[in-house]
């Protein structure tokens, strides 16, 4: 069970960021993720899971959809915005499926790598501009960016299902 606490600490913020790009409500998102972990704790469910990361991502997505569904009844959200399935059917992976994953990914990066990654990919700065902004060398920027790319590859590899979905989408 020591393990559970560790898992919580390393996945809590990334999962919240993942959920935030779907639900767009910070308070709701924290509730969703906390409730998920409470369930997992009570049912001792993580013990039986092979791929913890994939399992957590999938469950978070289900919980987000439940949340959006419940909001649907109170008419806060456009009905048409509700994702039909928890994970996209092969061939239907759109930008909307990718964006939550990217938020998850960025949130999981170590702080410095994340800062460099976001300045480059979100703010659109060049390596040189980033180096100046952060007061580090271009070489360091380069190292951080390749570290980010490496972890993105790892994320894809580990969650082979996502990988397969992406492949099918692109080559359909």
């Amino acid at each position: 069970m020591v393990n559970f606490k560790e898992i919580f600490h390393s996945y809590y913020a990334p999962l919240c960021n993942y959920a935030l790009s779907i639900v767009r409500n910070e308070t709701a998102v924290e509730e969703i993720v906390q409730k998920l972990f409470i369930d997992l704790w009570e049912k001792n469910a993580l013990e039986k899971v092979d791929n913890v990361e994939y399992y957590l991502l999938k469950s978070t997505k289900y919980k987000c959809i439940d949340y959006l569904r419940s909001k649907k009844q109170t008419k806060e959200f456009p009905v048409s915005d509700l994702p039909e399935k928890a994970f996209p059917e092969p061939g239907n992976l759109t930008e909307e499926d990718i964006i939550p994953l990217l938020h998850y990914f960025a949130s999981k990066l170590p702080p410095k790598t994340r800062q460099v990654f976001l300045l480059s990919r979100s703010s659109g700065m060049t390596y040189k501009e980033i180096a100046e902004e952060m007061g580090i060398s271009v070489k360091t920027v380069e190292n951080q960016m390749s570290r980010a790319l490496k972890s993105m590859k790892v994320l894809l590899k580990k969650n082979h299902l996502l990988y397969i979905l992406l492949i099918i989408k692109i080559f359909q």
Partner: protein
Amino acid sequence: MSMEKIYEILSRHFSDEESEAGGKTVENFKKKHELEYFILSRLWKRRDIHVKDFNAAKAWESMGLEAKKPRKTKIIYLRHGFLKLAAAVAIFLMGMAAVYYFRVLAPSREIISMQTSHLERGKNIVLADGTMVWLNSDAYISYPRKFYGGTRTTDLRGEAFFQVKKDPAHPFVIKTKNTTIEVRGTSFNVRSSTNMTEVTVKTGKVKVRNILTGKEIMITRGYSARTENDKLLKFRTTNPNYLSWKTGYFKFDNVPIEQVVKDLNTYYAKKVVIDRKKPVACNLTAQFDDISLQDILKIIKLTCECGVRESADNYILYALKTKKQ
């Protein structure tokens, strides 16, 4: 070559930081790992990503999971009167905090949505940041009562005109079914249906992104962009009446009557149609500044030398038999 070096070159390549030495390596990688290359380049594209710092330690504490284990449970017996009082006060304060939260804090996170009816048009909304939105009929918009986070995001179905308050730090984003539109501070019109979105810029710059393909373009004054399925097109704005649904101002410069009718129908509730058996062939040059449809039809009747008859739902334009060819 080491794996590390490859990551370095690839990340440079995906970030458009080309180096002379890297070109060949990238080509080799692309050949060998085609799938991987495609996926990574798709993910590596520029997008707005905003990472919030969620406090895991605090969340862990508040969940109190460790206390849930039976052997760690502590039971506190309230033996003393003052402890009971303290507990009562604590519960009362918590109640007050909850009331404060739901009454004062929570509403700020509320999402407001608005749907205009078939007849309602030009409905004007002011968003929390001062941005003004005019909704055409049959339009739907949802937006947070208060904007938070890095972007100001709204959802739109149908047609609306936006006059966005300038705030470079917080891009204004409009999502339609198939398109994301991003601006800093400008005014423009959005017309959307299930698989089509058309953006026409009045002032400033607007970034339009097809959600399906992730492709995006920048358009400025005098230009429109249309996304349809996986297409994304940029073209010069040719129709000067794209905003007439809101203003009631029409300008026609030698425009075929079919187009005139189409434009008029964006503004007036009672629709104008052309008689199919006796079609009117005429080009119109005129300006109407929010005058009644009857008056417009009188002018059309005189210039085009045609007849107008009224049915329950429509005005019908028809060619007169006596009209010379």
